[in-house]
């Protein structure tokens, strides 16, 4: 099985703060990590490899320093790593990002594409599904478990929903977006670490991929950030012991009081 895992380097948001004046993330001094959902996706691919044998390619779009997470993926057990980096990709929103990644994926062979559900820096959960649309692939998002039998032309996947979960059968090739909670990702192996920096790193520019260049970077990005701000601290709530009818009256009264309705 040929598996491609799309990963992203993100600032470790557990250690990040927002500049109160500009409303943007303060990235200085914040460590960069492999996005947790993407790591869950890579682990899912590695488990398929452990059980059935697979060739795993990891791909990321980002600045040159994003190479670090590809080396990490090598140390975890990936077989091939591709870094999409070019000034033409700069300023990309999720749509332009998904066009760039799809452009690269069109030139590669795969049975399965995996991405993380969402990145902890943007929390959009859009890139994976957009790639599936561009490549006209069936997709399942919010995957927490995959079952496969050698030789089957499909996967059986468990998808998390707000109410519970769904068990779905999806034909290969397909796109899955995976949750970090799907598994406990393995640690890099010491031998993998020792070898990681000696392995080939394929660096691809925009010329190397199959995509209309007008769809890339800032000019291919219809999203404009109007304003970013830190949500204020909510005042303490109040507790009322009421019947349902009284509760409805109280809530409606409060909403009217604040001119919300």
């Amino acid at each position, binding site marked *: 099985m040929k598996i491609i895992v799309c990963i992203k380097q993100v600032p470790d948001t557990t250690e990040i703060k927002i500049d109160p004046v500009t409303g943007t993330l303060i990235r200085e001094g914040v460590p960069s990590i492999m996005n947790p959902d993407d790591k869950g996706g890579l682990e899912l691919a590695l488990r398929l490899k452990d059980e059935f044998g697979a060739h795993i390619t990891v791909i990321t779009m980002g600045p040159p320093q994003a190479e670090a997470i590809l080396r990490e993926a090598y*140390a975890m057990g990936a077989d091939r790593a591709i870094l999409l980096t070019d000034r033409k990709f700069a300023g990309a929103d999720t749509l332009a990002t998904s066009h760039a990644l799809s452009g690269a994926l069109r030139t590669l062979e795969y049975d399965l594409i995996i991405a993380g559900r969402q990145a902890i820096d943007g929390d959009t959960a859009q890139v994976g599904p957009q790639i599936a649309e561009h490549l006209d692939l069936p997709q399942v998002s919010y995957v927490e478990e995959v079952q496969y039998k050698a030789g089957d032309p499909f996967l059986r996947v468990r998808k998390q929903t707000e109410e519970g979960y769904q068990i779905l059968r999806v034909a290969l090739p397909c796109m899955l977006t995976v949750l970090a909670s799907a598994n406990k990702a*393995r*640690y890099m*192996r*010491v*031998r993998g*670490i020792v*070898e990681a920096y000696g392995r080939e790193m394929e660096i691809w520019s925009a010329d190397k991929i199959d995509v209309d260049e007008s769809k890339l970077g800032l000019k291919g990005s219809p999203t404009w950030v109007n304003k970013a701000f830190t949500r204020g601290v909510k005042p303490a709530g109040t507790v009322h012991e009421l019947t349902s009818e009284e509760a409805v009256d109280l809530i409606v009264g409060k909403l009217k009081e604040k001119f919300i309705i």
Partner: protein
Amino acid sequence: MDFGLNKTEELFRQMICEFATREVKPLAAEIDEEERFPEETVKKMAETGLMGISVPVAYGGAGGSHLMYIMAVEELSRVCGTTGVILSAHTSLCVEPILQFGNETQKMKYLPKLASGEWLGAFGLTEPNAGTDAAGQQTYAVENGDSWLLNGTKIFITNANYSDVFIIMAMTDKSQGTRGISAFIVEAGTPGFSIGKKEKKMGIRGSATAELIFENCRIPKENLLGKLGAGFKIAMITLDGGRIGIASQALGIAQGAMDETIRYTQERKQFGKPISAFQNTQFQMAGLETKVQAARLLVYSASVKKGLGLPYAKDAAMAKLFASETAMEVTTKAVQFHGGYGYTREYPVERMMRDAKITEIYEGTSEVQKMVIAASLFPKK
């Protein structure tokens, strides 16, 4: 000498730091309290390849640098001194002498299983009457047909109850003095070899420290490690390397106590402000931070020299002397900064203080380190 870590070492630091924080730290208080050897952690360490970091790939290891191994002991000890010494004793005292003095057959037989973590290793030199004066070995081995018959008792052996392979020193010709001591590879389960009393210790209480008892223990001839009569030299060279491991354990414990104290002094408020805002705290912590960093440079320097094949015995002694004394000072002061809370088992600093003490004692006391350092200053003429 350049101590800037290369990219491989940086990536390794990331992994080992994550491993220590997630897998080792949550168990540290429990294994100390229960005096329990953390078998589950050792198994996880084996899965990631930590039991054979610097063993060449040809012998089933990861082929990493000695500095990577030292960083692993440091990071594990930062959160749990017990786990640090398990790795240090296994690697420095069992894997290293086989790698350095073993013949090809011995290397192929033992190293792959030790490097994969399927087997754990230990080392036996100390006896009731042969501590700092290690030359006074009373354990002896006599030739008997195709084998050696081993008799005697070793004490204070780290990893004893859980090890599969032991490097054991024994007198083979008393008339030759230290040149009559030889080294042997002894496997657990050999008839005549048993594990005796387990020590109840002040610190590193999860580490299994026990007696080894040999009663007409029959060892195959081919298990002689190195040349006949070379045992004392092998032991001393092995301990030179082991000292870097223990120095690194001390460094890790010191760093762990610094981390805890930096956090606590910023949270703890007295007289209306965090105690970190007082100059007494700041000046003392500045001094301790400087010592920890100085210890790190000594430890890494000794490790890099060993890795490059340069002489390092004096460097290892200085690293162990300074790092262990720094660990004792930092952990004692960490308890003081924590006040009454620091004296309780609610906080890890009292454990760190207990763990730190042994680093001034085992694999050569501080006094032995001074003898080694002084010997290089005043060579015998």
